[in-house]
């Protein structure tokens, strides 16, 4: 969960995104008529209107540059039928936001919801075209990785269903046991989820990520209730919403904006998550199941490397060799902490142990930061 890191990245102009670590990247902008100079499709939201600068778009990565010119807080959705393709809530008056999504040919609707209520003011858009700017190897990498993400996202749903049922039944011990496993598939693909506007903050925000007036929701709200002895009845609605959100995530994966570079950068972001959240023990402040997340982040980064391997073997074989070595070193540092099907509680890992884990992560993160560029042919 990286609200603070994510928001500024998305607010940058599309061209600047080429150099940053976000999965939302716009090096291959939509080129339809009505697209702005940087290739983004302007969406102007007001209290009464929702103007989309171009309603005929080519397929591929599309960035919507949203400006709220109204007096109310608004939100913008892209629908395929009633399925949410992507969304951004809480766009304040006078502010802008960029939302990038991979649109395959078909009919969509862009909806602005001034006041964040109702069905919104909708504009139909039509996406046409076949093929992709990627070559066969690149396309295979993207397809393979998307299939992996889909499988992981689908796998989250039944796990969260079980967690939700245990919470609803007031079964604290059962829910505690289900909590960390329910997060594993999510933690392997989290950067993709982060690319969809609002899902990640809703599902995985930590208390420290919030500002005054924001409510803690998602997994960490459940974590807090489960480990602080709170009455579980109070958080059943939170569990219900989390279940809806994981379902929505699985639905959105087909439109995740993926390129070889974004997949590589996503791997780096997973290790950044480890370095800033798990090593410090901040991610799972109540359950101390940080090492379970840690392993999932590493597994997700390795899956990204495996998807990109045919590309990077050609462009930078030394990098691949170095990454294989460093992945093995991180795994060797983690393995001693295995316990049963999971890992020991992170509050039992002392300073020396945390330092050694941090060093292994640094050793991997430095070469991993070059994977995105190597996959993009740079």
């Amino acid at each position: 969960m990286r609200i603070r890191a994510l928001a500024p990245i998305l607010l940058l102009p599309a061209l600047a995104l080429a150099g940053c670590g976000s999965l939302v990247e716009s090096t291959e902008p939509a080129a339809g008529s009505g697209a702005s100079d940087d290739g983004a499709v302007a969406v102007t939201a007001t209290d009464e209107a929702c103007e989309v600068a171009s309603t005929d778009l080519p397929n591929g990565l599309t960035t919507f540059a949203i400006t709220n010119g109204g007096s109310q807080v608004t939100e913008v959705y892209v629908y395929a039928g009633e399925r949410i393709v992507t969304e951004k809530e809480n766009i304040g008056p006078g502010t802008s936001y960029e939302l990038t999504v991979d649109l395959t040919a078909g009919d969509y609707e862009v909806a602005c919801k001034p006041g964040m209520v109702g069905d919104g003011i909708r504009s139909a858009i039509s996406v046409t075209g076949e093929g992709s700017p990627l070559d066969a190897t690149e396309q295979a990498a993207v397809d393979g990785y998307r299939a992996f993400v889909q499988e992981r996202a689908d796998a989250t749903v039944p796990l969260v269903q079980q967690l939700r049922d245990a919470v609803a039944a007031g079964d604290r011990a059962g829910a505690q046991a289900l909590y960390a496993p329910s997060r594993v598939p999510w933690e392997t693909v989290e950067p993709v989820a982060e690319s969809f506007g609002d899902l990640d903050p809703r599902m995985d925000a930590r208390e420290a990520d919030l500002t005054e007036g924001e409510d803690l929701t998602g997994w960490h709200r459940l974590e807090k209730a489960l480990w602080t002895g709170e009455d579980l009845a109070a958080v059943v609605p939170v569990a219900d919403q989390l279940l809806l959100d994981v379902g929505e995530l699985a639905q959105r994966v087909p439109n995740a904006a993926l390129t070889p570079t974004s997949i590589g950068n996503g791997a780096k972001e997973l290790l950044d998550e480890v370095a800033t959240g798990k090593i410090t023990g901040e991610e799972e402040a109540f359950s101390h199941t940080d090492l379970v997340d840690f392993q999932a982040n590493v597994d997700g980064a390795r899956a990204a490397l495996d998807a990109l391997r045919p590309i990077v073997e050609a462009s930078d074989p030394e990098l691949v060799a170095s990454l294989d070595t460093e992945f093995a070193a991180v795994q060797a540092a983690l393995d001693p902490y295995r316990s049963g099907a999971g890992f020991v509680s992170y509050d039992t890992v002392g300073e020396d142990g945390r330092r050694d884990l941090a060093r292994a992560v640094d050793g991997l993160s430095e070469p991993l930061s070059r994977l995105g560029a190597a996959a993009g042919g740079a």
Partner: protein
Amino acid sequence: MSAVPSVSRRGLLTALGAGAVGAGLAAAGTAVASADPDGGGRDAVAFEGEHQAGIATDVQSHLHFAAFDVVAADREELAGLLRDWTAAARDLVAGRPVGEGGATGGSPLAPPADTGEAVGLPAARLTLTVGFGPSLFDDRYGLAERRPEALVELPAFRGDALDPARCGGDLAVQACADDPQVAVHAIRTLSRIAAGRAAVRWAQLGYGRAATVDPSAPTPRNLFGFKDGTANPSGTDAATLDEHVWVAGEDAAAPAQAWMTGGSYLVARRIAMHVETWDRSSLGEQEQVIGRTKGEGAPLGGRREHDAFDPASLPASSHVRLAHPSRHGGAQMLRRGYNYTDGADGLGHLDAGLFFLAYQRDVRRAFVPVQRLLADDDALSEYLRHTGSGVWAVPPGVGRGGWWGEGLLA
């Protein structure tokens, strides 16, 4: 790293300022290179030499010192780290950005090779000096028999209050520069290059030189307000340096230790000063404790700082008397320490003091006996607490195409 065009950080800035963005880079490199082959200008210190720079070099204004734990899997990886460090150091001391593309000339999709905070800054007489700690010679890299006999662990001294988190380290790097950001950039860069092979164990910033190796320069003052190191060896006095600072071929106890010839031994001590209690002592007491006048720095009873004096004429427990070479068989050390402040101690006092750095031919005949006597008898000890410590074998200088530690590891 060797493929980097010879464009200085300043040349780069000038070229960019003239509007020659991107496409102008190669041209800028050429232009700068023709006028200024090393890229760094007059304030670059030569990297290569018989001895490492940063020892006899005129003491720069700022220090960033870092001790590293080596986590390399094997000796080959350790050697690779030192080769990579040396390549980066050649760029850093010349004032060039490190790595392919430097700070801004690489792929926009990739992280910049150079971190960028020194762009536009001069070379600032940066020196980088590397040492090997006793712990490097354990069983990990098969170096035990190459450990010089003189590389001893320092004994415990009376009154030591050492924090293990500020002690030791397999490797040490001393970065000295006339611009603090240049020194910090250098350590940060080496730490980044080391990822997966070595990690920073502890580090220390020093902001004001507390020593000089130029006898014609005014002697700097420490945080007690006294001139310190009046009798320091001159950096150009080859005979004194050969006798007291540089390791000689005859010093090798075994052929496997001969790699240290031309090197030196570095002792670092983080010495916290109780500046608040010191400030409450009278001028007369302060001068009795030190053994010199506070204003001129003359030995008590003398008139000028460099007046000859008989140590026996000074107060029995005065610092200058006890530290005088005549008490230690003539042994001298080349000192190039820095004043530091590291915030507050949580009790309403500054955490301030001296980061003591001393180079010597053999610690067993220099730092160890001197410090033992000072710790036992020096009146100044009441105001000091040694909180960090380390000793390193500093290998000789690097020749053309050479690398740090090649004598030890090649």
